[in-house]
């Protein structure tokens, strides 16, 4: 196929050609970035939590009434929950991953540091590691004798009495890497808040935070050996037992004290689902916009293609009369579209890069990976070819006899 005659024809239809090019360029730029955004959201939705996802249940009760008997009541609740057949582990915790609370603390590695090294989520609650199903990579989990009651700890803290304070902690691998890059974290000391020293006795693979402001710090979590009575219970059971166990748990808790208000009763899968619902809605929207954009662009190519074919009916007839085959005519229009699409794609890639720069500045997005550009190019080439096929076939169907009429 000769490209030169096509180019010389296009030179005579500069504006129309330019419009097709611009439309393809803009579509390319937006679709590349939108698909990138979608992949970012999908990656976020599949964020590793570090817990036994399909085995966890949460029941949250409003703790109302005199504070004094909270810990006794919590112990009763835990004992009752443990009796339910199928329950493998129970813990009274301060918060659950992805549950949208935010109990955090600044962490220093040197007491004299001016600013905290990082901000980490503090998970409290005896038996939390077993119940969450956390994975240890070094050291040990917290043991029963590490734990102190929260009220005791507070009093000890105010009195400056080291005896009643927690001494050990378990941190995530991500946090250990950030605090001591390339070093062994076990045995090292960190300072929680301003002056509570804790020794790292264990490192866990993953444990995600309940609220995430910045995905880079999503895994900055630590276990602190403090017993809490906030009325938040995490229950672990086999996946197929969850419905039954949840129902039984509510019944048991109601029996223990019928006046409490149940704030939450759900599986951890539901917590995860809810946490990412905005990301999921945004993903759907972006996919919808991409499809709509590609359809509109394809329709534009069909419209302009048809116009072009109608305009050149006579030329096509002449070419056919002079011996061009139907295939030649078909290829002519296909090549023309390919040329326009290619120019559009080249322009579009530059534009895509520009849009990405804008998003990086304003929306904290990473740089667009280079692989999205050829992917976008292939998609647009395909769409262009599919869209032009109809008009091109109509052009190929023009009979040579047209050339003889009313020249």
């Amino acid at each position, binding site marked *: 196929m000769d490209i030169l005659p096509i180019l010389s024809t296009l030179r005579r239809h500069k*504006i*129309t050609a330019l*419009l*097709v090019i*611009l*439309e393809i360029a*803009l*579509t390319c*730029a*937006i679709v590349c970035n*939108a698909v990138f*955004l979608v992949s970012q959201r999908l990656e976020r939705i599949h964020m590793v939590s570090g817990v036994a996802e399909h085995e966890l249940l949460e029941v949250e009760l*409003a703790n*109302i009434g005199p*504070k004094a008997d909270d810990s006794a009541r919590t112990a009763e609740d835990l004992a009752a929950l443990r009796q339910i057949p199928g329950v493998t582990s129970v813990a009274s915790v301060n918060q659950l991953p992805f549950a949208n609370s935010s109990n955090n603390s*600044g962490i220093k590695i040197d007491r004299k540091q*001016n*600013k*905290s090294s990082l901000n980490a989520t503090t998970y409290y609650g005896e038996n939390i590691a077993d119940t969450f199903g956390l994975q240890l990579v070094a050291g040990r989990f917290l043991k029963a004798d590490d734990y102190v009651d929260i009220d005791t700890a*507070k009093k000890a*803290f*105010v009195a400056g009495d080291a005896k009643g304070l927690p001494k050990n902690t378990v941190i995530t691998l991500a946090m250990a890497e950030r605090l001591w890059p390339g070093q062994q974290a076990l045995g090292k000391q960190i300072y929680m*808040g*301003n002056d*509570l020293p804790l020794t790292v006795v264990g490192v866990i693979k993953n444990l995600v935070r309940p609220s995430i*402001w*910045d995905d880079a710090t999503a895994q900055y979590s630590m276990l602190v050996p403090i017993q809490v009575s906030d009325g938040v219970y995490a229950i672990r059971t086999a996946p197929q037992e969850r419905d039954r166990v949840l129902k039984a748990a509510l019944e048991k808790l109601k029996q223990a004290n019928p*006046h409490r*208000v149940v*704030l939450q009763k759900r599986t951890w899968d539901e917590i995860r689902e*809810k946490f990412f*619902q*905005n990301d999921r*809605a*945004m993903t759907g*929207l*972006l996919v919808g*916009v991409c499809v*709509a*954009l590609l359809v*509109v*662009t394809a*329709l*534009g190519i*069909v*419209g*302009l293609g*048809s*116009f*072009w074919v*109608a*305009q050149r009916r006579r030329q096509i007839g002449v070419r056919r009369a002079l011996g061009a085959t139907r295939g030649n005519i078909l290829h002519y229009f296909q090549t023309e579209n390919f040329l326009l699409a290619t120019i559009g794609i080249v322009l579009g890639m530059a534009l895509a890069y520009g849009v990405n720069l804008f*998003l990086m500045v*304003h*929306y*904290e997005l990473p740089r667009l990976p280079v692989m999205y550009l050829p992917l976008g190019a292939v998609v647009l080439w395909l769409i262009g070819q599919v869209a032009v096929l109809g008009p091109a076939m109509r052009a190929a169907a023009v009979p040579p006899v047209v050339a003889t009429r009313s020249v």
Partner: protein
Amino acid sequence: MFGYYLNLALRSLNRNKVLTALMVLAIAVGIGASMTTLTVMHLLSGDPVPTRSGTLFYPQIDPVTVDGNHAEPLDVMDYHSAVDLWHAQRAERQAMIASSTIKLRAPDVNLPPLMMPMLATTADFFPMFDVPFQYGSAWQAQDDEHRARVAVISAQLNDKLFGGANSVGRTLRLRDTDVRIVGVLKPWRPSPQFYSVAGGRFAHGNTADYYSKPEDVYLPFFSGLEINAGSFGVFNCWRVPDDYAHLENAPCSWISLWVQLGSSAKVSDYARFVADYAAQQKALGRYTHAENTRLRSLMQWLDYNRVVPSDVRLQTWLAFGFLGICLFNTIGLLLAKFLRRAGEMGVRRALGATRGALFAQCLVEAGLIGLLGGLGGWLLTLMGLWLVRQQPAVYADLAHLDMAMFLITFVLAIAVSLLAGVLPALRASRVAPGLQLKTL
């Protein structure tokens, strides 16, 4: 002449229905997408108290005594600073705010206890923010000091508990305390829930929660603190507090203060008053960063917190990119349409029509396409907003088309189509009559 052009345009649109439909569809889809996101943007970035937002101010002080980041003062205040500033009564009106969740039931209504969001605030809250009442009224200023056991409830709670009847004078049991209802609000849904906006600078654009519904129970500030002690949310503690249940003396920030100041002189007076207060507290040894004070206006405060969620802003950009593509598409199709009628144009030119007349005729046709596209765009916008309402976002219930946005839909559609029509119309009106007549 306009009527004649309109007639011509209608005929022309009728001649090639597929091309017309494509153009109308392109504009409708582009307008539908951009108006949906623009409406959401308009609803989320609007002025929550249009009657007096210019007179509302948000003072900030820096009570943090530990080292660290002191570039900006904390977003909310500690108890002592807030109460001191409120007590001074230096502004026309002032309201303190602290929020929590409270267990409540109506003793004479047979419903299980509910957990409801409660706002502890002072009497000025209602007149200051122009909160509308359905029954009764706000409590009196002395009720704040006397820790009166009274409450104002939302229309939704009144519907839920009392079936919408006038419940003024009835009793509500909050935890273990009975309070008397003195007022019931009309449905009130400021967007955003401006008075509790704080911490936007840490939110990384995830600010959808600023659009939550207002609280259901309002209590006089000190009564609320007493009744629901231990349940109040804390913004930040710079040292470990001795007792989370009683935050009055804790090194924590958890109370917002809003003031109303009617003139710029009063604003600068108040700013000086806050600065003097901070300096005095430093002299007393309570503050270490006294110079770190701010007095932002309501709209400045919302801007500072970047209240519009970044996803919504992103969607708006996306929609306008989309509209741009639809615009290019329409230019191309209009070009095709007008050039195809070069013969007709040639005849009109030969019969004496000026270039301007042809240009005007083409633009009328483009405008008509825009009007049809606007109609389709309006329907698609309604559908788009319906889709937004199905989303899980907290602001979903706000997404409705108001009169202004309805009109903007059509203005935008016609403007876009006229813009798209300029180039094709210029080309078409430049047709050489002789050349065209020859080919007829």
